[in-house]
């Protein structure tokens, strides 16, 4: 981790609503997040927890029926949450904050040559044209580890394997030297061996280009591999954040516990894995108390009445749960978490 931390992007009390069939859906409910320069932040949560929507709001890529209805997102001294015009967003999207999407099968244009697609992004954002842009595109292909760039430049997406395609998508994203790279489930569609290579590639590029990286994922194994800091999201809110070691070895929010316990890697053979019963709350309705309480077997009475504030565990670690209130009864962390911590101590 960096010694001196500069905040590069700061989101405060962000609220995002979608209107669907005349009703309002509160996708993000007062989310705050500071992103430090050069770090790797992972955002974890189930599908529908709002992790994609939250980060999409940093680049103005919300669907047409959604909008930021509250809070601010400060980036380079400006509140980008107030941006409404496409022209304003274009000064940031792709140029300063770029995104890598989940599925390399759908995020490339099948009718255009790979090289042209990279060149397009360079020409649009950097004002470099023609031969110079082509040279840069070839450099990018080489940088992301695609052998034989001259030949590959003239090929179409269908001639690439899944892993190679994801490399191309990454090349397009980093071609303009963005300050922040958002990776939305970059490896879920890939094989484990390819996944490890792609994670390595992103790590190298991050060091070389001094980028700040946000990972969005539901795979806690990937998080342990790449992240410096972790934010856990549930039902449109961040419920816990801390350094990666704090989240894995000493988590406090019951939802983080449940996520860790449900991992087959930590399961005991022959026994049932602990599961998270029920479904996430309906975000059309107003949520009372702790959103996770109905699915939490050890929920306290107050969880159903009053929303918990953030409690500080350490300088870098906060959790939004009543368990940390001094008045709360003592509740032990689940076996999976205790096992992780013990293994860590034994290995030293």
């Amino acid at each position: 981790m960096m010694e001196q931390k500069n905040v590069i992007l700061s989101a405060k009390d962000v609220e995002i609503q979608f209107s669907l069939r005349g009703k309002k859906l509160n996708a993000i409910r007062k989310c705050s997040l500071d992103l430090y320069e050069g770090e790797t932040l992972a955002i974890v949560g189930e599908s529908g927890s709002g992790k994609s929507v939250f980060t999409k709001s940093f680049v103005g890529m919300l669907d047409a029926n959604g909008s930021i209805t509250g809070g601010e997102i400060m980036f380079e001294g400006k509140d980008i949450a107030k941006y409404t015009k496409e022209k304003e967003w274009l000064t940031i999207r792709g140029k300063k904050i770029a995104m890598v999407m989940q599925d390399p099968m759908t995020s490339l244009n099948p009718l255009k040559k790979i090289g042209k697609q990279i060149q397009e992004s360079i020409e649009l954002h950097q004002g470099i044209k023609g031969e110079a842009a082509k040279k840069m595109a070839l450099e990018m292909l080489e940088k992301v580890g695609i052998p034989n760039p001259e030949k590959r430049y003239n090929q179409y997406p269908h001639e690439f394997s899944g892993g190679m395609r994801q490399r191309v998508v990454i090349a397009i994203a980093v071609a303009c030297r963005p300050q922040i790279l958002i990776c939305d489930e970059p490896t879920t569609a890939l094989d484990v061996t390819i996944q490890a290579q792609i994670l390595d590639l992103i790590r190298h590029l991050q060091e070389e280009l001094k980028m700040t990286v946000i990972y969005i994922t539901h795979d806690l194994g990937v998080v342990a591999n790449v992240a410096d800091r972790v934010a856990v999201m549930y039902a449109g809110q961040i419920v816990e954040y801390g350094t990666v070691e704090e989240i894995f070895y000493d988590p406090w929010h019951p939802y983080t516990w449940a996520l860790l316990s449900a991992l087959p890697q930590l399961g005991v053979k022959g026994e049932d894995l602990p599961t998270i019963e029920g479904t996430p709350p309906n975000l059309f309705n107003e949520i009372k108390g702790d959103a996770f309480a109905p699915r939490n077997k050890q929920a306290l009475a107050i969880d159903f009445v009053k929303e918990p504030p953030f409690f500080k565990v350490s300088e870098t670690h906060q959790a939004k749960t009543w368990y940390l209130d001094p008045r709360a009864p003592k509740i032990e962390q689940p076996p999976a978490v205790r096992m992780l911590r013990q293994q860590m101590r034994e290995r030293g």
Partner: protein
Amino acid sequence: MAEREKLIEIKDLQITFGHGRKKFVAVDHVNFDIYKGETFSLVGESGSGKTTIGRAITRINPTSGGEILFKGRKINGRIPKELDLEVIKKCQMIFQDPMASLNERAKVDYIISEGLLNHHLYKDDADREAKVQKALREVGLLPEFASRFPHEFSGGQRQRIGIARALVMEPEFIVADEPISALDVSIRAQVLNLLNRLKKDRGLTYLFIAHDLSVVRFISDRIAVISKGRIVELAEAEELFLNPLHPYTKALLSAVPMPDPRMEKKKKLLVYDPSMHDYSVDKPVWEEIKEGHFVYGNQKELEEYRKEVK
């Protein structure tokens, strides 16, 4: 071990696609047995032929050499009609993507009872309905879901429908082709628990196909690692994790992300390069190096593996 009943035996199986110059060998001289009541996992990258083997057992893909035996009877190639029907009933499949494997236009009731209808495995309509409802309850869904369409369900529920569809035929053997890869973490646990419970209650046998070794460790009794159409290593689950021998198995293990940051940050990624094997003179063989632990290699490699294994 020797006493255990073999449910599936695969002998020198070969599957090729295309002809002549365009011939592609997808599965190359594969041998293994699946014992009754166990979960046997097949692990490998995409394109390694693991799904092709699963599909050959359920008679979806034709084979081009070797034998597949189900309860001692040959079930690949030309077989009598009654045996064909029996295999279709007794060997069922669960698919990877619950979003793509259910008929969007059919109600759950029809999706689950399609197999029953095809084979007239019911006395009357009431009997068929009872069977559907029983299958739904068994996978943890409510009987009234039968009248709904697939799009009304979440991913985990859809996968349960896929499992119910297999169960209603009362199979003995299920090929589960990456049944949890497309699911969220919290739902994965539920589906794994369900598969384990059904195995206990019904005495099912699974062939579990996956690319993620970490998940497989939790569910399987034995694991086979497959690369480019060849099984390179086979052992009991714990043994494979403690004593991985073949370089491909080691590479796969090193790529598996573990939920432990300190371990992950120290980890070295191994890359498998098939050209490291020199099989020009010393021909490789499939050998049992320790009881129940098989590995593929030539004499020189086997010698090294023996030293390593202890």
